[in-house]
């Protein structure tokens, strides 16, 4: 474990990613204290006389939005929504994917067949379309959005875990465990799962990037979390028609989404290289 950490730290890109993630987590946790204003307060002096949003200034560092709200406060509060949905949705997706993948790979037979054919089926679905349709029809709360994202994102994990389980189940130590009388549940929990954990960790990290983007996209289309919950995608959705005259309303939240998504991708890549040094630099 220690050598994994050391290898991870040598990877400058991964450390950069971890820093980006760390800053976002800190921003999300400390938003109530860091934010200069209430994210939902509409300022009298937050709009020009014509009613347009204000560009960044000493009073409003990131400018104001179309309703005269302080964008810095909204970006800080939006971090929590993004991370919460990203982590929750991906956690559920990885959990479903791992359970189904392990079950299919270890039991094989008709159970495995049914599970893997079902993943084939899910692969054939246009995932984004499915997510948008579901989210639009369910009028989502934060948890529903997370659940919808999880339901279309577990497939990849299931496939990877399935093929790894297949390979592991052939190994001698699993055979040996079975030979000395370990039952399926013991073999699974004590012998198989520990070997799958690195993969689970890597996907647990890389997948957050996907889910963060997914949440932003749903919110941008107006079917994500509902107001007043601040969301970066939603902020861009609301100010989309002003982006030529007030581009900071698109660029600042957009940059925030990019940083979080890139951060988790870099950490995931670094984690994969650190956990499996033989693959280093190949992927």
């Amino acid at each position: 474990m220690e050598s994994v950490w050391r290898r991870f730290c040598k990877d400058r890109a991964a450390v950069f990613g971890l820093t980006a993630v760390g800053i976002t987590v800190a921003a999300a946790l400390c938003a109530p204290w860091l934010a200069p204003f209430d994210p939902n307060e509409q300022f009298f002096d937050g709009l020009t006389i014509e009613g347009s949003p204000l560009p960044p200034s000493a009073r409003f560092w990131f400018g104001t939005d179309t309703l005269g709200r302080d964008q810095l406060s909204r970006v800080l509060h939006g971090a929590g929504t993004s991370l919460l949905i990203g982590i929750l949705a991906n956690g559920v997706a990885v959990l479903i994917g791992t359970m189904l993948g392990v079950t299919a790979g270890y039991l094989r037979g008709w159970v495995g067949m049914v599970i893997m054919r079902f993943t084939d089926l899910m692969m054939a679905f246009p995932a984004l379309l499915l997510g948008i349709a579901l989210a639009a029809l369910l009028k989502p709360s934060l948890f529903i959005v997370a659940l919808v994202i999880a339901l279309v994102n577990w497939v990849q994990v299931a496939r990877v875990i399935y093929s790894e389980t297949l390979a592991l189940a052939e190994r001698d130590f699993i055979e040996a465990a079975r030979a000395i009388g370990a039952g399926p549940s013991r073999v699974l929990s004590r012998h198989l799962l520990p070997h799958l954990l690195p993969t689970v960790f890597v996907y647990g990290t890389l997948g957050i990037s996907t889910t963060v983007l997914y949440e932003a996209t749903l919110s941008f289309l107006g079917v994500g979390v509902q107001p007043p919950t601040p969301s970066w995608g939603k902020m861009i959705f609301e100010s989309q028609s002003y982006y030529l005259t007030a581009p900071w309303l698109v660029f600042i939240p957009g940059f925030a989404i990019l940083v979080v998504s890139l951060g988790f991708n870099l950490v995931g890549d670094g984690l994969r290289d650190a956990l499996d040094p033989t693959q280093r630099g190949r992927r």
Partner: protein
Amino acid sequence: MLRYLAKRLGMSLIILLGVTVITFGLTYLVPADPVAMIAGRNSTAETRELIRRQLGLDRPLAEQYVRYVTRLAQGDLGRSYARKTDVGDLIVSRLPATLLLMLGAIVAELLIGIPVGIYAATRRGKGSDKAAMIASLIGVSAPQFVVGLTLLYVFAYLLGWLPLGGYGTLAHLVLPAVTLGIAGGGWYSRMMRSAMIDVLRQDYIRTARAKGVGERRIILKHGLRNAILPIVAMVGIDIGIFMSGAVVVESVFGWPGIGQLTWQAIQGLDIPVIMGVTTLAAAFIILGNLVADLLAPAIDPRIRIR
């Protein structure tokens, strides 16, 4: 070959059938009443009942499903609730724009992904390799709507080189295609790099080098041909995904493709259109996979179809 084809086609049909079950189930499990939306807010109970009966929505679910699939098999995707026209016709009317965007996006993905991937592979471990890979990762991590709006702001608004969205000329295609190409190209370059690195350590590459073949020829002829296979498979999948319409990009650029149609259908709860597009998209994803698999032996003769 024929047996393989028959088996794959049979499997594809079963998966497609499964897709229709799920689409059908989802749209009917949803807590919203399409009849109320068609009839309008001020409709009487009798009108609603009449519409319900006309659409066959009063029949048992299983019967509705069987009727849907039977019609589907005859190429009938049903009628749109909102537009009162055939879903098939609606999709066909959006097809030119969607096909054009798909073509443009795939060209952009390949033009970005393959050169960057090869460049990184040949400079493996150096600073330029890392820079290329981080650039790819940024492409993958950036939300499409932000990329699209940024490109619009810079190239259409500030520089005025290209039109501010819309559809019509080739100039209109550039920004939407590049927006899709940046994300796809990021994935392609990562795949291209790792495939190329694998190929370049094969014995036949060493043989070619020993024979004195130039590095350029080695990479482009021997390397690329062997490393391109995963990309071909990805293009197959992408064709299916783009067929269902690039909802986000079409919404940013006002592109009148299938994605826009779907998006309007979702907002208006036009269930036949949603079902039609989803089923069609799934069919294309399955077909794209199949074509990529069938193309594989043509590109790499070592792969034999069993």
